[in-house]
């Protein structure tokens, strides 16, 4: 279970939010809503440990995430605003490498399968030649091979996706929640997904 208590965040001398508390239990999805610049990305970065909050703390299974370090990192998938794919590599190489870095060893056919499911060309095309939506899909394909990871933290996962892509992602969400995993994601518009809780940063 992911818990955050009394989080406060200040960026560039401006206070984004204060005394923000949340708890995400297994099988729950939390949606972070809010206008541009309201601190959605900062909150997600705090939750995954990339950013330290000005005050407050984040706990995973009862322990502070700063003391868990890599142990916590191996329990989560964070997909940020940047797609985290290398333009010069193919989608398959990207997926294989990002999984290896996360400590998941993938076989070549598993990589191919995951990309096929997301409709990404698995051939020798470097990612730079793909469209924005396809790049997004290549990044999201990571989720379909992260089924054993209990916590997903996703920054604007629905941006740049077409209707079919959104359906695929929703399907992954449903299955992650059914397995008892947790999801925290941000959107500026309502994607029509039944989130268990909504945090509105205004």
């Amino acid at each position, binding site marked *: 279970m992911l818990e955050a208590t009394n989080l406060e965040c200040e960026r560039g001398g401006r206070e984004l939010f204060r005394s923000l508390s949340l708890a995400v239990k297994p099988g729950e999805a939390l949606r972070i809503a809010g206008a541009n610049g309201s601190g959605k990305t900062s909150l997600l970065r705090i939750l*995954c440990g*990339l950013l*330290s909050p000005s005050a407050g703390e984040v706990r995973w299974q009862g322990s502070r995430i700063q003391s868990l370090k*890599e142990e916590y*990192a191996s329990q989560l998938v964070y997909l*940020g605003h940047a797609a985290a794919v290398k333009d*010069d*590599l193919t989608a398959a190489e990207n997926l294989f490498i*990002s999984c290896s*870095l996360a400590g998941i060893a993938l076989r070549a056919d598993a990589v191919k399968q995951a990309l096929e499911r997301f409709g990404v060309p698995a051939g020798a095309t470097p990612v730079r030649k793909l469209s924005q939506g396809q790049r997004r899909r290549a990044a999201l394909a990571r989720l379909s091979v992260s089924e054993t990871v209990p916590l997903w933290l996703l920054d604007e996962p629905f941006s740049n996706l077409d209707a079919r892509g959104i359906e695929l992602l929703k399907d992954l969400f449903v299955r992650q929640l059914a397995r008892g995993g947790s999801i925290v994601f941000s959107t500026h518009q309502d994607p029509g997904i039944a989130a268990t809780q909504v945090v509105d940063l205004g």
Partner: protein
Amino acid sequence: MFAAARCVVYRDLLLALRRRSDVATALLFFVIVTSLFPLGIGAEPNLLRAIAPGVIWVSALLSSLLSLRRLFEADHDDGTLEQMLLGAAPLGVVAAAKAFAHWLVSGLPIAVIAPLIALQYDLAAQLFGVLALSLLLGTPVLSLIGAIGAALTLGLRGGGVLLSLLVLPLYVPVLIIGAGAVEMAAAGLGGGGQLLLLAAMLVVAAAFAPWAISAGLRISLE
């Protein structure tokens, strides 16, 4: 942990292979700069022999600096650096792997090609071994120290100039000892002492630089 380090090295080498021009730029820079000196100074064998170690070492140092800025910048821009911070392996291991990959594509080719360059300076053939060995031991230190600077200046405007100002003074001991090894050998005193010093510097840098690099990366990504 070693799987992650291997993966980072594999990835960076693959990227270098796809963008061969970046690798070639640093190497060509080294070749051209070292070739300019004999042309500018003229064919005075004694003078050329005397300046050879220093010129080759300074060029190697500048060439290493040239490719440093891109070490973390590209990964920072496309978000893959964040993924490395959230990886299963400690960031220090990833940082060491990145510095090693940087050395493989920037330092190693220079050490290999240096004896060929030394021909232009009429350096005695028995010194080629010392020259190559000093570069082989010294350039990884340059990559490790440089990576600390690259991590600290990541995402800054005008980071390139700041990086040079930050890193070049730290390169000075490596330059003095590295070039000194060849000069001592040329004087018939044997460069063994300097080479051992370089090896010691490499051990110390390999032990401590990864933690400094990862601390720098964490600060820059906040």
